């Protein structure tokens, strides 16, 4: 009976009892990431709507921001993703020293990114950018900027908290390799979201 049931499942979608072939923790993390991605997708679509429906000229990004500075922020985030990947790899190999070292490097990268973002926000606020107005053109520009980068920055911050807890627990041997991997998934997701914001908001 059991076999017949398994065979039916297999025939329909090849998934059997474990359709994703992953532990429940990892499956839940992925489901969370998909829903969180949809939050950003909604925000980016709203930004697209505001920009396309704006009767006023959309400000030229290179006149508002230093694109070189944004590129530096991108570089920091991509690098922190690579160090995170290395930490996950080391955790899988059971190398706790390398795991801790690269986790702390990742935290350093994330903190540097947040610092850059705080600097950028301070700068544009001084120049007169507000949620409802700005000196460069369409008033929706400020709202799009603050909401998109604000939500992303909050994710970076919560990622930092998770990484800090993971790093400390990993040093004392309380976090298994999978714990580091799940924290890594979230961190890479934050990097992934930045790829979209960087292209759609700063470059296009």
């Amino acid at each position, binding site marked *: 009976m059991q076999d017949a049931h398994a065979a039916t499942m297999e025939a329909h979608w090849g998934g059997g009892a474990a359709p994703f072939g992953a532990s429940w923790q990892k499956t839940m993390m*992925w489901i969370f990431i998909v829903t969180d991605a949809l939050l950003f997708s909604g925000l980016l679509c709203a930004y697209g709507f505001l920009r396309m*429906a704006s009767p006023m000229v959309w400000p030229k990004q290179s006149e508002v921001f230093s694109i070189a500075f944004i590129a530096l922020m991108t570089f920091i985030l991509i690098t922190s993703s690579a160090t995170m*990947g290395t930490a996950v790899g080391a955790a899988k190999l059971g190398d706790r020293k390398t795991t801790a070292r690269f986790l702390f490097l990742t935290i350093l990268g994330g903190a540097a990114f947040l610092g850059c973002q705080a600097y950028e926000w301070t700068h544009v606020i001084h120049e007169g950018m507000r949620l409802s107005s700005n000196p460069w053109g369409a008033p929706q520009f400020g709202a799009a900027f603050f909401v998109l980068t604000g939500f992303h920055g909050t994710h970076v911050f919560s990622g930092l908290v998770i990484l800090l807890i993971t790093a400390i627990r990993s040093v004392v041997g309380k976090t298994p390799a999978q714990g580091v991997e799940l924290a890594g998934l979230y961190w890479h997701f934050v990097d992934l979201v930045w790829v979209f914001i960087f292209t759609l908001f700063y470059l296009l």
Partner: protein
Amino acid sequence: MAEARRNPYRIYWVTWGILLVITLAMLMAEELHLPRWFLVVFLLAFMMVKATMIGGNFMHLRYEKRNLAVMVFAGIMVTSLILFLYIAPESWSVLEKIHR
């Protein structure tokens, strides 16, 4: 044996290098005064390449069961596309009403 001797972290740093090169190419394309439509297609295409590399190599979707990768990719992209395709014509009709 050869697998064990190879640097296990190589994939992350190779991906890092490729991501940096793509980012630089995107920044340079901005400076080149290309036709707008070409720039948009170029940037969107490379944005997707970067996203695929992060998902595949950093988040290990390449090594997971296909079902998981399909669920993640389809779940995000199809929903986003539907959302955008419904929202885009709305923005044009708003513009039309403003100009009328």
